[in-house]
Every structure is written in C-alpha cells, then in structure tokens.
C-alpha cells in the first residue's frame, strides 16, 4: 500500500511541477526581441529616446551651470567652481559629473532605431524618425564630449554586455566629427517643415551645427549655419528676455524638451524655495545677481532671477511650481551670439555685422547699443553678454573653456583651473570600474 501511495504521489509530482506552470511573464514590460517592426513601433522607441534625452539634458544643464561661476549651492554659497570628485557612484550627481551612463542609455535607444528602422520601413515618415534620431544622437554625443572630452563612440545597439567590448575613447575632435556627421545625416533626411518645437527639426539641426562649428572653430560654418536659422524668418526674439521660458514653445525657441505636470522637469524643486514647494539647492552667485540687477549690465535680464523675499535671489527659468518648465535646448538669442562671435573670429572678420548681432541682444535687454570697438574688446563683451543672456542655459563653463580663458576666469577662484586637465569633468568612478578594459579616467583625476 505504501508503495502505491509513493507511486501516485510521484506521478502527481511530475504533473505538478511541469515547467509550464513556472513560466510567469511580466505585465508591464516585453521581451526585447523584435522591438522595431514598423514606423509606428519606431516612433514609440523614439518617444522613449526623447524621454531619456529629456532627463540627460536636464541633468547636464544642472551640472554645467554648477560647474561654472553662475550658480552656487544655497547652503554653502561657497564661491563657485566645485572641486570635482570622481568618487561618485551615481552618475547623476552634479558633484560627480554629468550622467555618463544615462547618455548611453539614450544613445542605445537611438542606435536601435537607426539600425532597425531602415530594415523594415522607408519613406517620408521613416526618414523623419531617422532624422530626429540622428539629431538626438548628435546632441547626446556633443554634450557628453563637452562634459568629459573624448568618449567612446558607440553607433550600434547593444544586444549583450559584450556588444561594445573594445570600443575605447575616441578623441574629442573625433567625437565632434561624428556629431557633425550625424547632423549632416539629419539635415539630409529632414524636410523644412516645423510642426513642433518639442521635436527636432532641420532648424534645430542647423542651430546645433552652428554651436558645434563654434566648438570646432569652423567660424565660417558657424556664421553660415546660424545665419540659416536667423534668416529663415521662422523665429524671432521675444519681447522680454524672460519670455522665452514663461510660456512653452515661444517664438524664440528652436528646439526644447517639453515637460508637464505629469512629466516633470527633473530638479525643478532644486530651484524653488520651500514656500513654493521646493528645496532650493541652487541659486545664482551673489555676484551674478548683482550684475543682472545692474541696469547698465543686465538690463531687463534681471527678469531671469527673483528675490525670494529676504534678499536672496533665485533662478526663475526652471521654477514653474508644477514642474512644467521646458528645457530650452536651442533658442534664437544664442544663434545671434554665435554668429556675432563667429563673424569676428573667422578668417575674414566682419566686425560691423558682428556688432549688429550683439546689439540685437543688448537692445532686447533694454541696453544701449555698443559703438564699434576693437575686436578683442568686442569678444570680451560677447563673453559677458553670453554670461548674462544664456546665464542658466548651461553654456558658461564650456564657453570659458572653449575660448581658452579658463585659467584667468576660473583660475581666479581656484588655481587648479590653470591646469587643462580640469577643463573636463572626471568620469564617474563606477563608469571606470564597469569598463576597466576600455575606459580610462581623464588625466588628473
């Protein structure tokens, strides 16, 4: 009898534990096989890539603002330019560099589109998705390179942990060259329509090419690309310097990342004081506040900051209380300043036109136009106007590095900046540890 029972139970066990009852599938995720099958699925992945870029760029702007001399921590108010530490484990910590891993998360999504979409769909709809993907990849690599210098160039999707084995850092110049190549691809695939400033367009590609050319010191190109945007007639400066962020998709905006109360700008609470629901980590440097408030210097750009009530000024640009502030990626004011600088620096300088572009910005700020002066003085003035006009757009740190003025401008705060090693941020420590074969820490860190 005993044996029979064991037999029955053994049989029951076999039925019972059929592996099929152990196949549980998740309810809110799907297998990665065959993720892109048509234009529609590519569009979904592209939205995911915008979502990822939206996050990367928010953190990048925060990091780059804090790295420069425009923004300080409210708690310590220690005068600017942090001592970068490579100790961080969180790639997002502004103190530890600008989100290395997360950029590649976005890049991997974009690579997935660029790899698989051409295999399953052609035509105008597919071209637009490809163009936007090329644009976003260019923006991602440009900003990683601005943060870290040379970085690994990964141009195809990762299927396994070893997919990228052997890809070492490319030089800074090579990364920028790849950015250029992607933007050229984007330009060739876009048509000239501009339907939505929350998505990339050919104008965004031109504007980014203008910025890139400045960094590549191709000043003729910079002036020409900026000119395409300025002269397109599709964009115009807002009446007031602060109007570009008070409403989304302003007339001045070329491309911006859209946020909403259900998809909030990361870090928005970092700019808001407690009574408005924030935690106020970042404020403008008191010196910058004083200059922006000076009618002779900042003019109407005093609108970029607000007195929180006790004499402490806070940044207004990202401080919509419901988190819906857009992140301005490209806007017309910058294009004027790019063209102005490029016209002065190009092989055959055109000081008069450069001055005219600069005065467009000054006049909008309610300042008297400048009379013509020596190129050197004018370049210094452009640097200052960029500091005020683009105060919290994340340009100040790399502007000073790009123009070779770090030793004198940032060196005044900390002599460490006389050493070019510190003109780029360190890779997060965990990025180095995760990629010991290929990724070397930047020298000096």
């Amino acid at each position, binding site marked *: 009898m005993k044996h029979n029972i064991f037999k029955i139970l053994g049989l029951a066990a076999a039925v019972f534990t059929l592996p099929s009852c152990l196949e549980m599938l998740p309810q*809110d995720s799907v297998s990665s096989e065959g993720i892109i099958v048509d234009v529609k699925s590519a569009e979904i992945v592209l939205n995911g890539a915008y979502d990822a870029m939206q996050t990367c760029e928010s953190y990048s702007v925060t990091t780059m603002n804090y790295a420069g001399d425009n923004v300080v921590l409210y708690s310590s108010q220690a005068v600017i330019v942090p001592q970068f530490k490579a100790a961080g484990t969180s790639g997002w910590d502004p103190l530890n560099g600008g989100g290395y891993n997360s950029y590649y998360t976005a890049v991997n*999504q974009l690579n997935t589109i660029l790899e698989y979409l051409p295999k399953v769909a052609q035509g105008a709809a597919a071209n637009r998705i490809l163009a936007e993907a090329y644009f976003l990849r260019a923006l991602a690599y440009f900003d990683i390179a601005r943060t870290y210098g040379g970085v690994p160039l990964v141009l195809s999707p990762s299927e396994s942990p070893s997919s*990228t084995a052997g890809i070492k850092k490319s030089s800074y110049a090579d990364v920028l060259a790849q950015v250029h190549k992607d933007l050229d691809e984007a330009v060739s695939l876009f048509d000239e329509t501009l339907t939505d400033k929350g998505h990339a367009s050919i104008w965004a590609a031109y504007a980014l090419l203008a910025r890139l050319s400045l960094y590549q010191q191709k000043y003729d190109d910079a002036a020409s690309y900026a000119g395409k945007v300025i002269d397109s007639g599709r964009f115009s400066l807002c009446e007031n310097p602060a109007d570009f962020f008070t409403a989304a998709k302003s007339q001045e905006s070329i491309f911006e990342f859209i946020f909403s109360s259900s998809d909030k700008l990361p870090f928005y609470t970092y700019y808001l004081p407690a009574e408005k629901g924030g935690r106020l980590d970042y404020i403008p440097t008191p010196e910058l506040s004083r200059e922006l408030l000076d009618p002779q210097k900042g003019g109407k750009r005093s609108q970029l900051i607000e007195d929180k009530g006790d004499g402490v000024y806070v940044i207004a640009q990202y401080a919509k209380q419901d988190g819906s502030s857009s992140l301005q990626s490209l806007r017309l004011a910058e294009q004027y300043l790019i063209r102005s600088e490029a016209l002065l620096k190009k092989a055959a300088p055109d000081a008069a036109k450069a001055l005219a572009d600069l005065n467009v910005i000054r006049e909008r700020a309610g300042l008297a136009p400048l009379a013509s002066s020596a190129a050197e003085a004018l370049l210094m003035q452009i640097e200052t106007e960029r500091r005020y006009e683009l105060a919290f757009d994340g340009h100040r740190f790399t502007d000073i590095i790009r123009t070779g003025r770090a030793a004198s401008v940032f060196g005044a705060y900390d002599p460490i900046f006389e050493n070019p090693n510190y003109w780029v941020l360190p890779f997060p420590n965990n990025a180095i540890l995760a990629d010991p074969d290929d990724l070397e820490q930047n020298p000096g860190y």
Partner: protein
Amino acid sequence: MKPNLLRLAVFILLFHGTFILAAGIPKAEQANVIIRGTVFDSYSRQPMTGAAVTLTDKSAWAITDANGNFSIRVNADFPLTLEVTFLGYVDQTVTVENADKPLLIYLEEDREQIDEVLVVGYTRTTKNALTSATSTVRSGDIENIHSVDINDKIQGAVPGLLISNNSGIPGSSAMVRLRGATSISASNTPIYIVDGVFVSTGNPGQTDLGGLAIDPISDINPDDILSITVLKDASATASYGARGANGVIIINTKRGEASPKTRINFKAQLGVQQADNIWELVTGPEHAEIVNQAWINDGKDPSLRPFRPASQAITGYPAYGSPEEQITVDRLSDIFRTALQQTYNLSASGGNEKTTFYIGGEYTDEESTLKLLDFKRGSLRFNLDHNIRTNLKLSSSNAVVYTSRNLMRLGDGPAGLFQAALHTPTFQPVFNKDGSYNKPTSFDNHQAILDNWDGGSTNFRVTNSLSLNWDISDELSLKASANNDRTYYHEIFYYNTNLIYGQPNGTGVEGYNISNIFSTEGLLNYMHTFAGVLNFAGFFGLSYQRTQTDFAYMNGEGYPSNQLKRITSSAVQTASASGTSSALASIFGGVNLMYDNRYSIDFTLRADGSSRVGRNNRFGYFPAVGVSWNIMNEKFFPTNDYVNSLRLKASIGLGGNENIGDFASLALWEGGANYDGRAGMAPAQLGNPNLRWETTRQWNVGLTTSLFKQRLDLEFNYYDKFTYDLLLPKAVPGKTGFSSIVDNSGEISNKGIELVISSLNVSRSKFNWRTTFTLAHNKNRIEKLTTDVSGNYTPFKLFEGYPLYSMWVYEYLGVNPETGDAIYADHKKDGMITVDDKVVVGDAWPTIEGTLRNDFNWGPVNLDVNFYYKVGNKVFNYTRMFLESGGTRGITRSMQASSVNYWKNPGNTGVLPRPKSTANPDGSFNYEGQSSRVVEDGSFLRLKSITLSYTIPSRWVAKMGMEKVTLNASASNLFLLTKYTGPDPEVNVSRGGTDGLVQGMDFGMPPLPRSYTLGINLTL
C-alpha cells in the same frame, strides 16, 4: 513500552494535545464540588500545561491550562483518587480528602520514557531524535514585553536571531537577520509561516516614507500566539529549500483544548510612552556666531558676513541681524508628546473531544511619541479543529486583521515633521510677521505640518488555512492543506496648500497594494519501529505556491480648495498600475533513523522549481543531513545527579534564496518612457537565462545539556554558513546603454556561536528565581565581490573581505592644535586626502548581542526583569553629521549644541575643527561628512522590560466566578546604558526596504520610547 509510547505520541500529535484518556463524559447532574489545583514540574517548578488529571473511576477529567491550573467538578464522595499524567513524566496518584484548598502537584520527569514528539516544519520527530538547531519561544515568555509587534517581543530571546528596531514608531519595520546576512541583492529576512501559511513580509507601502517602512508582521496579534519556533540550521531549513537560507520562523497560534468548560480570557493594558534624551540644539546667537566664523574662515569678505545688522544688507548679500539679536526657538518640544497606548484582548477557547475552537479578538491603539504617527489594530482569529472520524481531522486557522496607521515621512526628505523640527535653524521664527508659516529652508515648517498633515494607511488582511489530516494507520498519516494570505493595503496622503508638498495648489497621492500568497501542500508522514530499537520516521511532500501582487499609485495636483481632498477633485491626475507574480513548485522528503535512543540521523531533500530563476536553471536541489548523539543513554555514561542530559548534534546542508525579483532573468523593454504626452518604450534590462538562485551551505554543531537536577540548562551551537551564487548587479560598461545585469557571482560567509544558559537559582515552595542568558556572535564577511556595489549612501560600500553594512569613510584623527583644521589619515601617503584614503572603520554588526532575563516568583507575585544588550556595533551618526557641521550649512540648517565647542585658539585640543567650508591644503574638508568623526560605538545595555505582576488569590476571585485574576505593571526602556551621543543607538534608517544595504545609520529617526503600562488579565 517504547513503541507503545511512540504510538501514543503519534496519537497525541494527531489530536494536537486534545487526546482523551478515557471516553467517559462527566455526569453533570451528580457533580457538586470543584477540586482545583496546579501541576508543576518538580525540577523547574514551572507550571505544566496539558497535563491530564483524571478521576480514577474515569467519571471526570481535566487538562491543565497555560498556567498549570485545573478544576474538576466531582461528587463530594471523599476520599477521591486523581491520576495525573503527562508524557515523559512519571504518573502520579493523588488522594484528595476534601476540596477546601487547591492542590499543588509536582510531577517527576521519567528518564526512562521517550521524550515528547515535536513537529519541526514538516518533520515529526522526538526531542532525542532531533538533529537540527531550533529555538522555541512560548507565549508566556513574551507576554510581559510590551510591543504591538512580535519581532520586538522576541528580540534577544532567540540567540542568532538579530532584531533591530529601526525606530520608536509602533508597527514599523525592524531589521531581522537570522545567523547573519546571506545576500546583497535579495531579501535577508527569514520566512514567516503562521499556522502553515506563508505570510507576506514585504513593505506594501507605495509612498516613500524616508526611513519608515510598514512591517506586515505587525498584522499578527501577539496575544494569539502560542509559540514561535525558529529553524536555524540546514537540517531544519532544507525542507524549505529555495526559501530557507535566511531561516524559517514558524508561528503557531492558540488552539482550543477539549475541556468541560469554555475558558474566557480578558486582558486589558493601558500605558503611556515618552521619548526622552532628544537632541539639544544651539541657541540662535550661537548659530550666528558659528556661521559668521565659517564665513570669515572661508576667506570671504567679513563685512558681508551673514549675521550683521540688517541695515548693512546689500543686493545678493542679505543681513540677518547681529548674533546677539537672534532668538532661539525650541521646535523639538512641539513635536513629541506623552503618547497613550491601550490594548484589549478577549478570547474564548474550549470544545469537546469532537471539536475544539479558539476565538480571539483584539483592539490595540498605540500613539507614537512623535506626533502624527499612530498605530491601530483590530483583529479576529478563529481556529477550529474537528474530528470527522477518529482518524480524520479537519483543522482551520483564520485571521482577519485591520490595521490603520497615521503616517509621516521620517529619515530624509523635506516634508517630515521630525526633520523639520530638528534641522530648521533655531534662530528662525515659526511664523512670519504677517502670521504665515516661515519656511526659510528646504524643510517644511514644523507647525504647518502639525496643523495640516493628513496621511495614513489601512491594511486589511485575511489569512486562512484549511487542512485535512488522515491517519491511514497508526504509523502513516496524510495531510493536505491549502493556505492563503491576502493583503489589501491602501494609503492616502493629502498635502494642502500650507505644506511644501502641496505647492502650488494641493497634491494628493493614493496607493493600493493587493498581494496574495496561495500555497497548497500534500504531506505524508510515516513512523515505524524496527525490532524495538530502530525508529524510522519519514516524510514526503509536494507543494505549490503562487504569489501575486497588484499595485496602483495615483497622484492628483491642483485642488480647488483645501477641503476637497480626494484625487477626483484635482485638476491634473496621473496614475500607474501594475502587477507581478511568481510561482514555486516543489517536492520534498526526508527520513530520520534513530537507534536505541542514542544515535539519530536525518536526511532531507527538497527540489524547487521557480519562475524567478533563469530558464536554464529552473530547478534547484537542496539536501541536508543531520546527526545527533544522546550520550546520556550510553551504557558507559555513569548514572549521576549532576548531568541529567547530554546531547551532541551536527548537520550540514543547503538552503536557497529565491527572492531575486520576479523577472530578473529576462531581457525586457518597458513602457512608461513617455514624452510630451506620447507613449514611449525604453530598454529595461539585458537578460540572463543562466540566472540561478543564491545557495547557502551551512553546517552546525551543537551541544545541549542539563545539569544539577535540571537546575542548569545549557545549549551551545556553532555554525558556519557560506553563500555562493549571490545575485549581484554585475556592472556592464556604461557605453552599452545599461548599467548592470543580474548575475550569480558573489560569496558571503557567516560564522557564529549561540549560547543559552538558563538556571533555576533558587527553588523553594514560596520563592523561585530563574535566570536566562543568551549570547550570539556572528562574523559576516563578503568573500567574493566581482562588482562595485554601494548602498544608497556613499559610506555604505561593499568590499571583499569586509562585512556587509561596513562604513567606508575618511579616518578622522582630530584637530591640528596649531591651525584648527581637521587631520585625516593619509593612507595613500601622497600628501593629499583623496577618495583613496577612505577606509572601512567598522560595521553595523554587533560582536555579541543577547538578553539577560531574571524572573522572580514569590507565590502570587512575579517580577520579570529583561535586559537586552548589543556590543561592538558601529553606528554612522548621520544626524550628527548634519547637526555638527561647523557652519558649512550656513543659515539653512540647524546645529546641535556640541557645535560650539570648536577650535578657537592655537593650542586648543579635544575640540571640533574650526568652522570652514573651503578645502584644506591637503584637499580635505574640516567638516567632511564621510568621516569617522561621526562613526560611533553603538554598544548598549537596555532594560528592555520590567514587569511586576500579582495574581489575586484564587479564593477571592472564585467568589466573583473567576478562575484567575492577574494585575501587572510594566515599564519598557527604563534605562539605556551607552556611550552613543545620539538619543538611541538602536534606531536605524534602512533604505531600500528592510533589506537595504544601509544598516546602522542614525538618520532622523525618533528614539525608542520609554513606556509604562498597567494591565489586568482575567480568566473565567
């Protein structure tokens, strides 16, 4: 005789102690007098529960209750003869001349007899045959300890089971670790089984409450519990296979006993709690001085120092008034209160030989000493046993529990009450001049929180089990059971426009979590004795378990007014909902062979198939073997009065941990990556089809002995656990677009000893003094770590060769008396203090921990004094790091009073560094947060509870128709002996749930309160 006794034992077991010696039913019409009495163990003088007291003519009988008492209604036909029996004891016959006073009956242990049958997990065994390390806590041991949570009640009582209260908040989570921690990524919490039901232990909360987590174990009414058995070694846990590596805690609740009379028990407890020894903060003028000093030491323009006359304010450089003008506000006194607590229990139990029952109802209402946090619980338990036929029994255990909590964020985060009161500078007024709440920092205004906070949760839990036990023969039985644990958790928070979370127009969140654990088991048990000396016991079982969790989280913003609080009133509504599930199918079995009551050997094997592990490794096998040697029964061992028992045991085996996340092995893309209102997808993880469960190999050797006529009992165990195939997020190069994949790569070891000594120091008829001392030591070590793993907080980083919960910081050597700057150890010897100079300075594990408990009994008076101690654990005092920040946090954060003791003049020693936020020449910072300056010794000795109880003489209470009335007064945490500078070294913010890698961090958690309780216990 032995086989008969064995059979008897099986018989007893099948009827859960409800056996009836004789079929006689009392003839009520003849009964006219009541004989009362108490049965004791003659050695230990402990009352004996479950002893059978029978009239020799079998016309009446009774079973002794939890206090050893019995009462029998008989004919007044004196003299009468009672027979008193208890398994394992010599039968005693007592002649009764009259019923005037209660009988005191002392039973002698029968050393010739076989010992009691135990159910250990799935196994039926006897004490002599037991090869595994287990500990049992009985209801009487924990009823004097005041807590709503059984985890807190058994703290220290089971050596090897480390329980650390995270805060003084009732019903909140504790860290529970059995014999150390075996995992980095998966859960380290033991599994809890209540009456055969695998119950959920995960925090169901959806909203991040900082360091506060809901403890689902607090859904169990401690007064319903009969016993808690902790399975520790591999031999005991192997039959739980893939879930056993962290140990198994088996809770049995009270059941009815066949008795002529239904026993009614009522218990009420009322108490108050207070928090004391709270931080002392600087005064306003002191704060101002320190901040000004830091400003000047930073090399900034002294004429722009923050605290200077308001008339000197210029744009961008506000002036907050001179230091002497600053006021001092005490916020901490506003947020604590004398908290009230009340608990009522009413139970009824009884039945006849056919059906027995237990019904228990409870209501508990406990305030936290920190305002805005409360815990309420109402529970109902119904346990039923029914003999369908003499060999077929139906048993059911059911609990319905409702817990309700007021909740508030603790630990970090700007919205918490405690943080707001602790960190808002004392020089800041509570209100602005216009009467509005002053919110000068990122923390909310504490008064605004007190006036406007609205948040809490409810949990409705239904736990059921139904089993059918069929005794196919005397030797073979079959048990089939179905068990279910279902939890409906709902939480709701509303932040109105007066709170920072409610900006600009009010915010509401609501979360739901519905979880279900269903399991079904079939179990076959067989016992047989060969040739009178070889006992065989075997079991074979099948089980299937399915876990399903569904959760939803909703958010509303933009409310029309502060009166409309539900999300439906809000302008912008967002929601997410999802679910997850897993399944486990298993076969298990084991045999025990015992020869001549001397040698015993156990073999156990379990095969588990889990949906969670990779397709290529779906099934896991967990074997164990254990042996025991009863030296006393050897012929060579001389019979003597000094050594009453002596046993050696040893075991080795494997256990698993399958708490690895439900879908960790699959390559997935997930939704929700939306942009500008359009749906998007993003890659979530790379797959790993080779994923396996974590496996723990454990061996154990133990010795138990009883000495000096059982006056001194001693149990000692040594264990060695080695866990391999640890699931670790293996870092993959960031350029792949992924940060990690889950991989089996790490190894962890735990080695330790456990000791219990219990002694009966004095044993007189009028006075007894019993002492129990427990001691546990565990050495945890990460043996292999192939990847860089860090906790949520940088100091909690994992290193090969060091324990989990290690603290990795700059080593602070003090202050340079000449410059006033901090000196840190330059381990790299490069003249600079860099990240490479950080070292591990300690960990959160105690070297030893345990209890010392003394129980004094003078007749009706009982005094129970219970100390809990922990030695050698380090605490990362994160709160002090913030509060002792030398002005580096400027005007935005408060400081503790010790901050004024900083370096002022050359030659100052034993002081804090001079206030300064800029770097020193060696790159270090004076008030570096990750510094051993704030790593403290967390050793302590706590008077966990002291209880004085008085049992009113039965002749008085009998007149009121009661059987027993006990009054008691108790106090918890009457004193705490520690060098720790914070309020309580035990508090701990655990991030990432109860299994976070951060343990031993004091971060904005309120201390354990001191409580005083009065209670009454009535038995009818």
